């Protein structure tokens, strides 16, 4: 797309009107103002797309096979490890990385920090897609995926933590759709819809905080059902929900830093000046927020060890692994953020964000998979399971890119206000 946007003044589309004064149709907007052959050309020139095609070529038949031959065909079908990579990565890993939506919504809409406005929509989109794909991962993992609405309408078990998770994901997903809709309405040119949502934005944002707090926390609380299974260092019955909630704060912020970095570097043609000029300043701001969350997280992690009297575990092999996780996943990026903020080294912050996001996924995999059944044996996911996970993540990436290419996420829609 970079080439086309350089050669043709009317691309990228930021307005309803073409250069000659006629209006873009929605179909033309979908094709980014290119003809079909031009679109194909730009699609196949991108090596990332070839990688995607290779992943899908194997992954899609595997997913189809899963629905024909059962979960046992793609996983190690374990009764000791009922939750594998689909949930360990897709649900427990993706959801904290999607906390960006409510974080930035709160910052801009609630605290009135207009200086973060340029990244708000990207954070909201990141949140929406992360949640949506977590549900998609769940649909692969559920035994009876067609019964997804059961806990809502058919048979209710309201005393279960998973009931909260289900309801909060469902309601928060709708809140997030509503929050991202204004961008869509601008793009299709239906201003009335945008104004309607604008009216409720404060309510939606507050709903977002409530639902996120409970939902991120509930994911942690799910493991309190297994007090004798998860390694004591990764499970603190009293603090688990706070650990998950607090770590989701810097996970979400780090994820927006990553997304914006990638978009700035590989989609520069799509960003407007407001986004590009403010990004370094915003990144430093996000890193500041993340640092506060990280130090809080670190302290409550230590408090949990002290509260549960687990000091002796720290001297074991698992203890070393635990400290390695905290060191690499929290302390290291925290210092990178601190140094980066102090010296205004944005690149260092960006590297730190990559490590922090990796660290969150690592922590969730540790809790759900690696340190689960630590007294029994270690489960190694089946290659098909790994491939399907990568396939769905690729689909997430493609959807993300598809939307950012088109909707006014990292640029402002010109024309009517």
């Amino acid at each position: 797309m970079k080439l086309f946007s350089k050669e043709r003044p009317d691309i990228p589309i930021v307005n309803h009107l073409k250069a000659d004064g006629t209006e873009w149709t929605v179909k033309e907007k979908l094709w980014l103002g290119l003809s079909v052959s031009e679109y194909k050309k730009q699609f196949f020139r991108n090596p990332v797309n070839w990688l995607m095609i290779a992943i899908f070529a194997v992954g899609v038949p595997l997913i189809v096979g899963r629905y024909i031959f059962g979960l046992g065909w793609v996983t190690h079908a374990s009764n000791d490890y009922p939750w594998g990579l689909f949930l360990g990565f897709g649900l427990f890993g993706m959801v904290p990385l999607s906390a960006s939506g409510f974080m930035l919504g709160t910052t801009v809409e609630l605290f009135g920090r207009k200086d973060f406005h340029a990244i708000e929509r990207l954070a909201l989109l990141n949140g929406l897609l992360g949640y949506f794909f977590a549900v998609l991962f769940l649909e692969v993992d559920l035994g009876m995926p067609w019964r997804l609405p059961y806990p809502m309408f058919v048979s209710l078990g309201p005393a279960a933590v998973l009931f909260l998770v289900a309801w909060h994901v469902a309601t928060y997903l709708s809140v997030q759709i509503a929050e991202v809709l204004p961008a869509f309405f601008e793009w299709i040119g239906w201003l009335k819809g945008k104004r309607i949502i604008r009216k409720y934005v404060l309510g939606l944002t507050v709903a977002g905080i409530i639902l996120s707090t409970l939902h991120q926390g509930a994911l942690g609380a799910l493991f309190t059902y297994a007090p004798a299974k998860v390694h004591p260092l990764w499970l603190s019955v009293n603090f688990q929900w706070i650990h998950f909630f607090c770590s989701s704060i810097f996970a979400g912020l780090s994820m927006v830093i990553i997304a914006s970095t990638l978009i700035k570097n590989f989609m520069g043609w799509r960003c407007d000046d407001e986004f590009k000029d403010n990004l370094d300043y915003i990144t430093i701001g996000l890193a500041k927020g993340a640092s506060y969350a990280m130090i809080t997280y670190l302290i409550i992690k230590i408090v949990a060890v002290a509260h549960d009297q687990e000091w002796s575990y720290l001297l074991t092999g698992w203890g070393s692994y635990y400290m390695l996780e905290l060191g690499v996943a929290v302390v290291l990026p925290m210092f990178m953020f601190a140094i980066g903020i102090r010296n205004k080294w944005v690149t260092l912050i960006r590297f730190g964000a990559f490590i922090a996001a990796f660290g969150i996924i690592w922590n969730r995999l540790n809790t759900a998979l690696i340190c689960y059944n630590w007294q029994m044996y270690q489960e190694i996911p089946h290659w098909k399971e790994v491939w399907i996970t990568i396939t769905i993540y690729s689909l997430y990436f493609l959807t993300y890119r598809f939307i950012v290419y088109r909707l006014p996420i990292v640029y402002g829609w010109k024309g009517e206000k």
Partner: protein
Amino acid sequence: MKKLFSRRNFLKGGLATTAAAAVLKNKETKASGDFEGYPDGMGVLVDLTRCVGCRSCEAACNKEQELPEPAKPFTDFSIFDEMHHGQKRRTDETAYTVVNRYDVPELDHPLFRKFQCNHCQEPACLTSCFVNAYTKTPEGAVIYNSKVCVGCRTCMIACPFYVPTFKYSSAFSPKIMKCVFCYDTRLKEGKAPACVEACPQEALTFGKRVDCIDMGRQRIRETPGKYVDHIYGEHEVGGTAWMYLSSVPFDKVGFDTHVPKEPIINSVKDFLAMVPMVLTIWPGLFVGFHLLATRKEKMMEMEKEKELAKQKATDEKEEQV
């Protein structure tokens, strides 16, 4: 207070709060007292010192529950040496109960342990299930309804005994499979489950749970030195319907002695109690933050308006003059 809160939000029509209100309601009944199981619930006392590992119970269960024929016949004792991931045999979708052999160094003979669903008094599978697929019947059985199950497998995470197993091999009708205490075919009519009836050694004794406990205590008291002074399952995870007597410490014959003494749900209650707090405190707190954060802007706007009005007034005065 609680009621007021939930009704108000109900009227507001917030879906999330409605769900939470339902949780709240349930919490109230839960908090009213810990459930100790039904008084007339049945139980089984398993005496490890009597079991000879004949696997009759496995065969009887297989027949009663119409499970598939196993690869090796029930008379094949080589399966006692089988190990999977360094673990002894476990139940799965083809076997609701298994017997394992344990060689204890201080004994000159091996011990055998029968293993199946323990039918907890306050089952973790039941309390963790978000579609209410599990029921604890007044007879003491923990049964499962495959018609509402979504296949999330949280019950398998929650069960401290690793009992519920999932039919991973099926794409169209997978379900959770575990011992149901022969509820439909026997227990409902007051009959002992198939495995108990099949035991030639009387290693399994079926009766009211309270009577099983009495009997266990009596055996411990009457034959000093034969048993360790503990009935496994009397207090473990809040009590189970199936209980065990052993001549050696329980951790030597494959029992998890680290399971909590109280029901699993107790470790989740902290979080459940926090939910209504967040629901009530967060809206006020954050709207307050919003008002504080945007106060300056509002004040500046008001100031501007005042100034404009003043300007207007002086202009008008000047005009009059």
